[in-house]
């Protein structure tokens, strides 16, 4: 059943039960929940872009300051929360803050849902205590790397985060620890890659995603992602030139921290970390004028 319908039904039930609407449970407090559906733009995950989109404009981020808490939706103070936060709230309300804080590490309390994808035997969503080692997530819950292969690399926090290597498997799943390892926990999407993965191809797909999702507002992101996507295409399909990895790094310098919102910055993190760890693979693509992993592709399972 489509999620919008589920949510709409839930809202109707809540309204009928008097949990939302006028005079909630006789408390004299009015609150209503309105379901507003977006229409397909990753950039609307940025809080100001979300507000702009809610106002009916193109979902382009706004200048900060003023921050949404000061001047947000329709110019009024606005709090923007994501689903993860809201989903955690009922449990904290029910069990108390101490129960929640008892879990996890001193710097990262509670639990978090990790969405594991890629080359593991059991991909899916896993809610784990903060601080659980990544090894446990991949090898116990995820059932290890598929087809008995070994791990090449993984991306711990979603499409934009820097790549980590098998040596980082014992890092705990919490924000500080992952940051110390050189990446970020981000959205909690764990992408696992086995030894046969072409890391250039993965970066290419991610950069194409950012190119597609760039709103086009600021120059570095609009032109930079387009250019990077072209470069990755070229390298992956055997037309790369010797200077291309350095060109990518230099473009990363010109985009990261310069774009209007973090989407542009984020588009460069994975490619740059990949060039750092796997520069030889880039060179191989360029020298051999082909992707060295193409032959080992899986057919439809």
């Amino acid at each position, binding site marked *: 059943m*489509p*999620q*919008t*319908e589920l949510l*709409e039904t839930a809202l109707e039930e809540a309204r009928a039960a008097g949990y939302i609407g006028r005079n909630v449970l006789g408390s004299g407090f009015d609150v209503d929940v*309105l*379901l*507003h*559906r*977006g*229409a*397909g*733009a*990753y950039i609307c995950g940025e809080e100001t872009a979300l507000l702009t*989109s*809610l*106002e*009916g*404009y*193109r*979902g*382009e981020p706004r200048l900060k300051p003023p921050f949404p808490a000061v001047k947000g939706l*329709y110019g009024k103070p606005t709090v923007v929360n994501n689903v993860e936060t809201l989903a955690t709230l009922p449990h904290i309300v029910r069990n108390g803050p101490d129960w929640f804080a008892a879990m996890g590490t001193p710097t990262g309390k509670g639990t978090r849902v990790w*969405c*594991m*994808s*890629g*080359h593991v035997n059991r*991909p*899916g*969503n896993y809610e784990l205590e903060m601080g659980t080692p990544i090894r446990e997530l991949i090898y116990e819950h995820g059932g290890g790397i598929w087809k008995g292969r070994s791990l090449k690399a993984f991306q711990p926090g979603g*499409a934009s985060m820097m790549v980590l290597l098998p040596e980082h498997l014992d890092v705990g799943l919490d924000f500080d620890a992952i940051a110390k390892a050189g990446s970020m926990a981000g959205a909690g*999407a764990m*992408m696992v*890659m086995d030894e046969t*993965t072409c890391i250039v*191809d*993965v970066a290419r*797909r*991610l950069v*194409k*995603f950012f*190119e*597609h*999702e760039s*709103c086009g507002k600021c120059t570095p992101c609009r032109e930079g992602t387009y250019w990077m996507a072209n470069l990755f295409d070229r390298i992956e399909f055997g037309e790369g030139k010797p200077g291309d990895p350095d060109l990518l790094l230099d473009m990363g310098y010109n985009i990261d921290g310069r774009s209007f919102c973090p989407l542009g910055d984020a588009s460069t993190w994975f490619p740059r970390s990949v060039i750092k760890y796997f520069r030889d693979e880039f060179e191989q693509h360029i020298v051999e004028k082909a992707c060295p992993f193409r032959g080992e*592709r*899986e*057919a*439809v*399972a």
Partner: protein
Amino acid sequence: MSLRKETVAMIREYARRYPSAQSAIIPALWAVQHEQGYVTAESLAEIATHLELPPSLIESTSSFYSMFLTRPEGRHDVVICVNAPCGLRGADEVLAYCERTLGIRAGQTTQDGAITLRSTPECLGACGGAPMMQVDHRFEENLTSERIDAVFERLRTEPAPHEVVKPKAVAPVKGEKARSGVEGARPRARRTQK
């Protein structure tokens, strides 16, 4: 004026629901797409009249989001995610298989008008079930050739979703997750092809 009375009433209602009529643009676009299956320039102009906004604004907003189709396509919309997690689990091969089976390229519609096939770099949000495809806003996950065949078999006879579901009063429209924003869905060929 080609929109149905119910749709117009919905658009008017949306305009009242928000502090500014502008906010009703996206719900109104959904309502139109839900009625017709796509949003033409004509409908954009009509939305503009009902919301009392300049039409350029409606086009500006609608073209920004990738889920609004601008021209009639096949009855069913099949989108294959080729972003990294799906790519790792064989999305390219799935796409190639679909193209082979349907005898069309991504971005085209089958001859009988049943299926429009697309691929998108935009994550459709089912990385755990990769490789996946989205059929009329519903997910088909963990694809195999047998599953794909079965889905296509079903789609060849089913009517288009917007022909089945009538718009409810003021309810958000049906649909599960993104229609994709692939190249083919962008309005009008303004760019001169090289």
